[in-house]
């Protein structure tokens, strides 16, 4: 076991940390306030190669490993959770299934622009009555000649509205349940594919969360990703890896909040001394730092297993479960350390606390993570 990053990983960490601090951090509060993302940041990230980190150079990616990708998402999330999930959902939820299950034509047509960042991606899985019960998707895909006709809605889709390429999980044979599902690649602008409601959320307010509406939307047969019947399987495999991205996001949120709280505790004086002179606060900081380190090791280990082509389903679920609960706890403590000021929008910790909550819910709730872990333990 080697507890040291490679020189390349260290340079990537420093580069993304500098970029996040200088370019993203100054915009984070305003983007959250206005619920509007500044897309010039995406263009800068594309130029730096942050939009396709774990994919081979032949497909427009950076040819780096999953640990490097996790570090990049962590560093971005430290200053802006919305930016972290933008990159994570794009890379893990859309680019990855196309990389893993796509034909060469599909990879050239879709993966290359996604990795290069000229197109943005999203995954359309969740429906009003299919959340944790992802297998019970109702959106239908009916074959008709050279095409499939899609009908139904998806909700809570991250990057929705702005993404150009969507991986949509549809039901092709209701009688077979989740074995009667398939995945399709659908481009924005396809007739019959429109956007419904934009969600107004507690946190990650600069991340676009949209309803997708399909009304007799015709998609070429060649746009089926993988085989008919594999839709749910593709979705689950995608979420296994997406978990590492979200775990990294949660880790970054926790670290960012902790950094703020640590600095503040040294400056804020009450009763004639900095509040960090109080043992109670020292213990709080110690607990926060320890939990963050534990989360970090779980996240990095899951990424390491994936990089080494070893099974990582249980470990990625543990990382996501622990890091998200850690983020919620640490950000709440951070607001506490800031006291009254932390409750105002003048300081970033209230945003970080609002951002943290979703990490316990999306890409598999904490409850689902526990199911996955237990299933692995009891098999």
């Amino acid at each position, binding site marked *: 076991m080697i507890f040291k990053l490679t020189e390349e990983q260290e340079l990537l960490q420093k580069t993304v940390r500098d*970029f996040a601090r200088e370019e993203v951090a100054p915009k984070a509060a305003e983007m959250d306030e206005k619920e509007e993302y500044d897309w010039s940041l995406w263009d800068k990230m594309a130029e730096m190669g942050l939009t396709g980190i774990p994919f081979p*150079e032949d497909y427009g990616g*950076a040819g780096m490993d999953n640990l490097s990708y996790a570090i990049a998402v962590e560093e971005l999330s430290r200053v802006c959770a919305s930016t972290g999930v933008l990159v994570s959902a794009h890379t893990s939820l859309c680019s990855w299934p196309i990389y893993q299950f796509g034909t060469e034509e599909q990879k050239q047509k879709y993966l290359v622009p996604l990795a290069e960042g000229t197109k943005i991606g999203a995954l359309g899985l969740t429906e009003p009555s299919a959340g944790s019960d992802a297998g019970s998707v109702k959106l239908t895909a009916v074959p008709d000649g050279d095409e499939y006709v899609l009908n139904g809605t998806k909700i809570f889709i991250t990057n929705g509205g702005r993404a150009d390429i969507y991986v949509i999980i549809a039901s092709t044979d209701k009688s077979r349940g989740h074995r009667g599902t398939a995945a399709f690649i659908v481009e924005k602008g396809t007739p019959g594919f429109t956007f419904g409601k934009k969600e107004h959320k507690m946190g990650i307010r600069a991340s676009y969360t949209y309803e997708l509406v399909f009304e007799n939307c015709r998609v070429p047969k060649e746009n089926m990703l993988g085989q008919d019947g594999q839709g749910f399987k593709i979705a689950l495999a995608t979420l296994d890896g997406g978990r590492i991205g979200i775990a990294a996001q949660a880790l970054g949120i926790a670290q960012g909040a902790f950094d703020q709280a640590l600095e503040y505790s040294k400056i804020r004086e009450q009763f004639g001394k900095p509040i960090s002179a109080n043992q109670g606060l020292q213990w709080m900081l110690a607990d926060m730092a320890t939990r963050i380190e534990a989360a970090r090791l779980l996240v990095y280990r899951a990424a390491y297993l994936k990089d080494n082509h070893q099974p990582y389903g249980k470990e990625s679920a543990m990382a996501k479960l622990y890091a998200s609960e850690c983020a919620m706890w640490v950000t709440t403590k951070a607001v506490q350390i800031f006291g009254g000021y932390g409750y105002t929008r003048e300081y970033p910790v209230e945003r970080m606390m609002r951002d943290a909550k979703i990490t316990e819910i999306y890409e598999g709730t904490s409850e689902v993570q526990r199911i996955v872990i237990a299933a692995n333990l009891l098999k």
Partner: protein
Amino acid sequence: MKIVVCLKQTFDTEAKITINADGKINDQGVSLIMNPYDEFAVEEALRIKEKDGGEVTVISVGGAKAQDALRQALAMGADNAVLITPELEVMDEYATATILAKAIEGMEYDLILGGFRAIDDGSAQVAGRVAEILGLPVVNVVTKLEVADGKALATREIEGGSEVVEVPLPAVITAQKGLNEPRYPSMKGIMKAKKKPMDKKGLADLGLEPAAVAAKVTALSYFLPAPRAAGKIIPGEPAEAAVALARALREEAKII
């Protein structure tokens, strides 16, 4: 165009400076960065290469950790890196410049760039000394640089303005803030840097005896500045307050 860029790894601008038990500056666990002024120099070299073609070599005198700064330059787009580790107890600007000049002497170059000063020692001497040793013209605190037809046209800061200086190449030019906006290394750049040459040398490889680069200036002691006292607000009508302020500036602050 063959460009050599001298760079130094320095303390991070945010680093806390402390003196250790030996009376020396504590460098344990301190975050290190590429000297920001050297970053401007690396960026300028890369822009010239992108425009006119050529090769950029980055060179540094330092310990093993300086490889991180050199690697960052390679990831930004530099072609080769040279690290010279002299393993001397005490170094001064004369020693650093002598070593750099000796190493550069053996290279082909049309232009030598560097930051105008390092943010840690802040002496602003090394590039000038290198130019002197190599017999080259040097233009400092440059905020704009154009290179063409074997000449450099450098805009440099002067008191109250700027002047444009023309020098024949090869020359030494030092960068001031405002020369450019350094790029972030790209992910591809980071991966490519792995395969670029990082040449490590010692004094012997340059044919230098330790005696030849013995420091001519030694620091007698280091001490931290007095902590900043709280500011003082001088109340009253402007005319009276001005008198009180002038008196305080003369008698308390002793600056007029």
